[in-house]
C-alpha cells in the first residue's frame, strides 16, 4: 500500500454566497501524476490554492506525509514541500532566470560563493530533468514554454516534493506541450508527485495515473486512469442531473433573419478566438451554443452584438450586412434594428453596479423616448416604467432607487433581461443567462426566453450549462477552440455526445 503524500479531508471554502468547495476529500499518492479535471468554475483552482496556502479553507484538514499541518501562507506550503505553477506566471520580467529563482530566498544566496553554489545546484537540476535553460537569460527574452520551466525549476529548487500545475498547457503550443510532458514524466521517475489541474481530457489520458473529477465545487469521483475512458470522464465532468422542465411548444420556424458568414474574431491580446464560423438563425428558433468556457463564445457574442471588431467574414441581419472587417454598427444602432443582447458577464458589461436600479433599467435605451426627450431624462416616465417592469419580472426588492450592487445576482439578471426583452427584439443574443442565479429565477428566465421564441424572435443562446442548452434549444452547435465542431437538431441528443464534442474528443 502506497501512503498518500497529500491528504485532504472535508475541505470547505466559500466566497460570500458562493460555495467554491464543498466537503472535498482527496488523497494523492507519492510518485504519481494525479489529474484533477472539471469544467471552468468547478473549484479546481480554489482547491489547489488552499493546498498552496493562498486561501485558507473554512473547515477541513490537510495532511502532508500523514502529518496534519496548518497552511497560512505559501511560505508554509513551500517549507512543507509543495510547489505550484500558476496559470499566470509569477516572474519578474526584467530579472534573469537565476535572480527570479532565488528571489525571496536571496538572504542566504545573493553574494559570492553561496550564489555560485546556488548556480551549480540549479545547473545540476537542469541537467537531471533536461530543462535546457540558460540561467543568465533575462525572462522577457524567453518564450512562454521556457518561462513555465523556470517556474517549475523555482519550485524544485525550493525543495518541492509535490508540484501543482494549474492549467499548464493553456498558453503553450503543441510542441511546447510535448516538451512539458517529457519533463513531467522525468520528474515522476525521480519520485516527485505531480498534481495536474486541467479541463482537457486528452492530457489526463496521456499523462496521469490517477484522476479526480470535480463538478460545481464537489468531488464527484476518483479513479485510476487505466480503468476509465474519455467518454466516462466527460460524462462525470458535465454531469447528468435531471433536466429542468420547460414547457415548450412545437417549433414554428420562420425565415432566416440572422446570418453569420465565415466569421473570425480576435481578442484583446490579438489571438484569434473565433475561427471561420458560419451560422444561421430563423425566427421562432432558439439556437444553443454549447462549449466549455473560453472556446470563443464570448468573442463571438461580442462581435455579433457590435462590441468587438470583426477580423474577417460578415454578419447579416434581415439580409442587410451589419458588420464586416471594414465597418460595424455600434450596439445602439443594432438595438434600433431590433437586436438585443444579454451579455454573459453582467457585472462587467450588462449593468453598472454603482447605478440605481432604474438607471440600469434604461441602460442603452436611455436616449429613446419616452425615457428622455431632447436629451433631458424624464424621471417620471422612468420611475413609472421601472415600477411596472420590476413588478412584472418580480425583481426583489421592488425599489427602483436602490443601488444595483445591493440586488442579488438573480435579481440583477432579471433587471437586464427585462430591459432587453421589453422592446420585443427580433434577434436576441443571450450569454450565460442563469450563471449564479437561484433555481426560482432560472425557471422564470427560461420561461421568458421560450415566450420570446414563441413570439417569433430568433434567439442565440450561449451557455456552459448543458442542461440549459438541452432544455431550451431547438438546434445546438458546439464550439471548441473557436470553431464549430458539431451541429445537431435537438432531438435525441444526449449530453454525453455533446460533452465529447465540447471536450474536443469526437
Amino acid at each position, binding site marked *: 500500500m502506497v501512503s498518500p503524500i497529500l491528504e485532504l479531508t472535508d475541505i470547505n471554502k466559500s466566497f460570500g454566497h458562493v460555495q467554491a468547495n464543498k466537503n472535498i476529500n482527496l488523497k494523492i499518492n507519492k510518485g504519481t501524476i494525479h489529474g484533477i479535471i472539471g469544467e471552468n468554475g468547478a473549484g479546481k483552482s480554489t482547491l489547489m490554492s488552499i493546498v498552496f496556502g493562498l486561501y485558507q479553507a473554512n473547515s477541513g484538514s490537510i495532511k502532508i506525509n500523514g502529518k496534519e499541518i496548518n497552511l497560512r501562507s505559501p511560505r508554509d506550503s513551500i517549507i512543507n514541500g509543495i510547489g505550484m505553477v500558476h496559470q499566470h506566471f509569477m516572474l519578474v520580467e526584467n530579472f534573469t532566470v537565476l535572480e527570479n529563482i532565488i528571489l525571496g530566498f536571496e538572504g542566504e544566496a545573493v553574494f559570492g560563493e553561496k550564489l555560485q553554489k546556488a548556480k551549480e545546484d540549479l545547473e545540476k537540476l537542469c541537467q537531471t530533468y533536461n530543462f535546457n535553460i540558460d540561467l543568465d537569460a533575462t525572462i522577457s527574452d524567453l518564450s512562454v514554454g521556457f518561462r513555465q520551466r523556470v517556474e517549475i525549476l523555482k519550485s524544485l529548487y525550493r525543495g518541492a516534493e509535490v508540484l501543482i500545475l494549474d492549467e499548464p498547457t493553456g498558453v503553450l503550443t503543441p510542441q511546447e506541450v510535448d516538451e512539458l510532458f517529457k519533463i513531467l514524466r522525468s520528474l515522476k521517475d525521480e519520485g516527485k508527485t505531480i498534481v495536474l489541474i486541467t479541463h482537457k481530457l486528452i492530457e489526463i489520458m496521456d499523462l496521469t495515473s490517477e484522476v479526480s473529477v470535480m463538478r460545481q465545487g464537489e468531488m464527484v469521483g476518483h479513479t485510476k486512469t487505466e480503468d476509465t475512458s474519455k467518454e466516462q470522464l466527460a460524462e462525470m465532468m458535465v454531469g447528468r442531473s435531471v433536466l429542468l422542465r420547460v414547457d415548450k411548444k412545437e417549433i414554428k420556424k420562420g425565415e432566416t433573419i440572422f446570418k453569420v458568414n465565415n466569421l473570425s474574431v480576435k481578442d484583446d491580446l490579438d489571438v484569434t478566438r473565433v475561427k471561420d464560423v458560419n451560422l444561421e438563425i430563423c425566427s421562432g428558433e432558439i439556437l444553443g451554443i454549447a462549449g466549455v468556457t473560453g472556446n470563443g463564445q464570448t468573442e463571438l457574442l461580442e462581435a455579433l452584438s*457590435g462590441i468587438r471588431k470583426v477580423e474577417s467574414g460578415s454578419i447579416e441581419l434581415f439580409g442587410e450586412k451589419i458588420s464586416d472587417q471594414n465597418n460595424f454598427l455600434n450596439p445602439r*444602432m443594432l438595438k434600433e434594428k431590433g437586436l438585443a443582447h444579454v451579455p454573459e458577464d453582467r457585472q462587467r458589461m450588462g449593468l453598472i453596479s454603482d447605478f440605481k436600479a432604474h438607471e440600469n433599467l434604461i441602460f442603452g435605451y436611455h436616449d429613446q423616448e419616452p425615457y428622455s426627450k431632447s*436629451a433631458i*431624462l424624464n424621471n417620471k416616465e422612468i420611475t413609472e416604467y421601472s415600477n411596472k417592469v420590476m413588478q412584472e419580472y418580480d425583481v426583489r426588492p421592488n425599489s427602483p432607487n436602490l443601488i444595483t450592487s445591493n440586488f442579488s445576482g438573480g435579481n440583477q439578471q432579471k433587471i437586464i433581461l427585462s430591459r432587453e426583452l421589453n422592446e420585443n427584439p427580433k434577434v436576441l443574443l443571450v450569454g450565460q443567462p442563469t450563471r449564479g442565479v437561484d433555481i426560482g429565477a432560472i425557471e422564470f428566465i427560461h420561461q421568458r426566453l421560450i415566450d420570446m421564441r414563441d413570439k417569433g424572435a430568433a434567439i442565440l443562446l450561449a451557455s456552459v450549462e448543458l442542461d440549459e442548452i438541452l432544455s431550451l434549444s431547438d438546434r445546438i452547435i458546439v464550439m471548441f477552440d473557436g470553431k464549430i465542431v458539431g451541429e445537431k437538431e435537438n432531438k435525441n441528443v444526449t449530453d454525453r455526445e455533446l460533452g465529447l464534442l465540447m471536450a474536443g474528443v469526437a
Partner: protein
Amino acid sequence: MSNIVVDKSKVPWWVSNVIVPLVNLTLALLVSGLFVFIAGENPIEAVKLIIYGSFGYIQGFAYTLYYTTNFIFTGLAFAVAFHCRLFNIGGEGQAYIGGLGVFLVAINLSFLPVPIVWLLAIFGAFLFGAAWAYIPAYLQSKRGSHVVITTIMFNFIASSLMIFLLVDVIRDTNQMAPHTVKLPEEIWLPSFEAFSGILGIKIRYSPLNLTFLLAIASLFFVWFLVWKTKWGYEMRAVGYNTQAAIYAGISPHKNIIIAMCISGGLAGLLGVNEILGVSHKIQAGFPAGYGFTGIAVALMGRNHPIGILPAAFLFGILYQGGSEVTFEMPNITRYMFVAVQGLIILFSGALENLFRPQIESFFVRRLNREVNA
C-alpha cells in the same frame, strides 16, 4: 491597516456625507490650532479673528463671497470631470486661458449692447477654457495619455503662453508691467457696492460682483447636467464602467471629451469673475492657485453641487478670515494659511478613509441596535 468591513448599503447617507466630512474638518482645524499655538499665538483668538474677518462686517463678508465664487467654479470643474473618472488637475491653466477668452471677446465686441457683451464674454470664457481642456481630453481618449499628467503640463504651458502674450502681444504698451489695458468701464460687471448703492446703503469697496449669481447658476447647471440629462447619464456610465458603456453603445471617447470640455469651461468662468468683475484687465498669474484649491473643494463637497457650495464657502472663509489673522497677528504669516488649507486637503482628501470605517461601523451598529430593540 483597518480590517473593519462595513456593509455600505446599511450606512445612512448623512453619516458618510455629513458626519465624516465634519470629523475630518474638525481634525484639520485642531491640528491647525496646534500650529498657531506653536507659532506663539492663541488659537482661540485666531478663530475669533477668522469669524470676525469673514462674517463680522459687511465688507469682509463680501470678500468671503467673492472667494467663494472662484471656488465654486473650480470645484465644479473638477467634479464634472470626476464623474467621468477623469482627474482634471488643469483647472488652473483652463481658468487662465478662460480669462483670455473673456478679455478678447469683451474688448473686441464692446460696441455691442452691454448685456450682450456680458453673455458673449461668458461664452468666450467657457469656450477658451473648454478648448484648453480639449487637447488633454483628446490625448486621453485617443492616445491613452493620462489626463493627470497632461493637464499638469498644460498648466505650465498656459502659464508660459500667457506670460508671452502679456509681455509681447497684448500688454498695455503705456507701461512696463505684464498686464493689458483696462476694459471700458461701461461693460464692467456691476459690483456689490453698486447694488447696495441702489438700495441706499453705502459700503466700501469689495471685489464681490454679479458673477456670484453666475456661480450659483452654475451649481444648478452642473446638478442638472450630471443627474438629469442623458449626457450626464452617459458620462457617469463611462466613469463607472467603461466596458458596460461600450456594451450599451455609449462612446467613451465622446464622453471623455464632453466631460473634460465642460470641466475646462467651468474653470474658464473664473476669468469672468476676475476680469469682467474685479480687475478689468488680464494680469499675469491671476488664477492664483484657485484651480488647485478647487480640487480640495470638490473632494470635500463629494463632487456634488450641494456639497461644493458649503465647501467653497468654507474655503472662502479661510481665505478672507486668514488674511485678517495675518494682518492682526504678526507671528502668523500668509503661508501659515496655505498650510491650513493643506491640512484640510490632507484630512478631507488623502486621509479620507482614516476614520470612515470606524465611524460608519459605529453608526451601523448603533442603528441596528435601535432597530432590534
